[in-house]
C-alpha cells in the first residue's frame, strides 16, 4: 500500500470512513457551495471545479479535521480560497454548459432581468476583495467577524471594504440609469 509523504499509511477502514463522510457532506452542501462559488466566479464550470477541489482537499486532510462543523467550515473556506485563486488566474476559459438552466426563480421575478444583470455586471467590475466581501455579506449574510476570518482581514476592514464597494456600486448604477 502506498502512502502520503509524512502521513501514516491509510488503512482501508479509515479510507472508507473518510470517503463516506466526505461524500455525505458533499451531498448535503455541494449545491449551496457551487452556488456560492458561482456568485463569486460567474462561471458555472469553474464553480463546480472549485467545489470538487475543495472536497478533494477535505478528503486529503480528513484525519486532521474532527467534527462535522469543522469539516463544513473547512470546506467553505476552501471554496472561497479556491474562488480567489481562480479569479487570480482567470485562466478560466468559457466552457460549454452541460446542465440545463432552470426556470426563473421567485427572486428573479421580483428584480427586473436587465436591472439584475446590470448590477451583477457592476459587481464583477469591482476589485476582487470588495466583490468577495459583498458576496459573503449579502449572499451568505455572514457577520463581520466571520467574513474577517475568511478573508484574513480585520472586522473594521470588512466594514470599510463593504462600504467602499457599495459606494462604487451606487455610483455605477446611478451613471447607468
Amino acid at each position, binding site marked *: 500500500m502506498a502512502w502520503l509523504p509524512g502521513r501514516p499509511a491509510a488503512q482501508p477502514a479509515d479510507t472508507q470512513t473518510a470517503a463516506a463522510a466526505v*461524500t455525505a457532506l458533499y451531498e448535503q452542501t455541494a449545491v449551496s457551495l457551487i452556488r456560492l462559488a458561482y456568485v463569486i466566479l460567474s462561471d458555472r464550470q469553474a464553480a463546480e471545479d472549485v467545489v470538487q477541489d475543495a472536497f478533494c482537499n477535505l478528503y486529503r486532510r480528513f484525519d486532521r479535521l474532527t467534527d462535522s462543523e469543522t469539516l463544513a467550515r473547512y470546506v467553505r473556506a476552501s471554496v472561497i480560497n479556491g474562488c480567489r485563486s481562480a479569479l487570480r488566474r482567470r485562466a478560466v476559459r468559457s466552457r460549454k454548459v452541460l446542465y440545463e438552466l432552470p426556470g426563473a426563480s421567485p427572486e428573479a421575478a421580483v428584480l427586473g432581468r436587465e436591472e439584475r444583470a446590470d448590477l451583477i455586471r457592476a*459587481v464583477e467590475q469591482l476589485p476582487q476583495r470588495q466583490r468577495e466581501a459583498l458576496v459573503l455579506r449579502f449572499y451568505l449574510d455572514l457577520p463581520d467577524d466571520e467574513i474577517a476570518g475568511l478573508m484574513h482581514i480585520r472586522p473594521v476592514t470588512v466594514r470599510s471594504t463593504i462600504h467602499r464597494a457599495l459606494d462604487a456600486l451606487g455610483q455605477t448604477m446611478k451613471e447607468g440609469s
Partner: protein
Amino acid sequence: MTQQLEDALRTAFRAKAAQIPSVPPPLRLDALPDHGRPDPRRTPWGSPGRRRLLAGLGAAAAVTAVAIGTVVASSSAPHRPGQGTRPAGTLPAYYVALTNHGPRASFHTIAVVRSSRTGAVLASLQAPAPYRDFVGVSGAADDRTFVLEASNWQRNSLNPHVRFYLLRITPGATQPAGRASLRGLDLRLPSPYNAIRAMALSPDGHSLAVVAYPVAAVHDPGTPDPTRIIVYDLATGSSRTWTDQDCRDNCSPAGNLAGNFTMDTIGWTADGGHLGFALLTGASGQVQFRLLNVRADGGSVLAGSQPVPLRAAPGVLGGVNPRAAIWGASLLTPAGNAVIIDASNAQSNAQPWPPQTLLQYSARTGALQAVLGQRPTTPGNAAIEVLWSSPDGSTLLVTGLHGKDSAGVLHRGRYTAIPWSGQLLSAAW
C-alpha cells in the same frame, strides 16, 4: 439608497445562484484536475505521484459512496472492462440514454451520458451524418464503454443503413468535449441484413453480438433466412454468424419482442462464453430461451445452443408453460444463473387481459425462482423491459413495471423508482 442597493444585491445574488441546478455533479475524488492548469506540480495535489495515490483513494471513496446511496451506483474509479470490480448489486456509475431531442415533428434520438447517482449530464451526442438517430445502445461491464447503433431509418423505409459507434466516456475530463469520444466501428452487416433487433456488448467490451434481420422480411414473410446472430470482434471487424437455416419450425432468434428499439434482450455471461437469447418458433408460436456457446465458430443456431427448460408453475401465467406465453423482454443474468422474462398468458382472450409478469427462472433447472413484479396489460402501454441486471439478478433496472414512462431499481422485491420520462426511449448501463 444604501438599503435599496443592499436589497437589490441580495436579490441579484440569489437569482444568480438559482441558475445552478439543485442536483450537484457527481463527486470525483478520483478524478484529479490535470487539465487546464498551468503547472500540475503547483496544484493542491502536489506531485503526480501523489495524484496517482489519491486516485486509488478516490476509488475506495467512490465505492463507499455507493454503499450509502439510496439507488446505488458503482465506483467511478477507472477500471478495465470485465474486471468485475463493482460491488455486487450496485448500478454502474454511468449510463447512456437514448433521448428524443428537438421539436416534436422532427425530433432526433440522441445519446445522453448521465450519472446514475445524480442524473447529471456528462455529454450529449448526436448521430453523425448521414445517420439520423441513435436507435440502440449497449454497455460493457466497466461503465465507461458503450456501443451505439446509428440508423437513418424512416417510416416505411425498406433500405435503412446502420452503423455502430464505440463510445468511451471519461467522467473526470475537465473539458466537456473530453468527457465522451465517439468512434465509428468498421462492422459490416451482410446483405440483405440492414436492421438490428437486439444487441449486446460483451462484458470485456471486445465483442458485439447482434440479432440482425432484413427489414424487407417484415414486409415479406417469404424472405428466407430472416434472422441471424452475428458476433463481431470490435478490434478486427471479423464476425461469426449463427443462422437458423436448419430450423424446421420456421424459428428465429427473437431479440426484443416488445419494442422498436434495440436493447440488451440478448445477454452475455460475465465470462464472455455464452449468449442467452429468445428463439421464436413461428409455426407453433412458442418461445424458447437458449444458451449459445459463443466460443464456437458459428453455424447453426440450434446446434450451437442449448435450451433452458423453463417449467410451468402453479398460479403463474395461468399455469401454462412459459414457452406458450407472450414474451416481452428476456435476459440472461451475467452470472448465467438465471433467466428473467416478462411474459403474459397468451391462452386467454378474456377482458381484462392477463397481466404482464416479470419472472425469474433458474437457468440450470428451468424452475421458477421468483415472481418479481406484475402490472396490468393495457392497450398502448409499453411492455416491461429489463435494462440492466446485477451478476446474479438480485438487482434489476426495469422500465414499465409501474406504468408507462416509469423506471426503477428492483432489489430483492423492493422497488425504488428513478427519474424517467417519455423522452427516454431506452438506456444502457
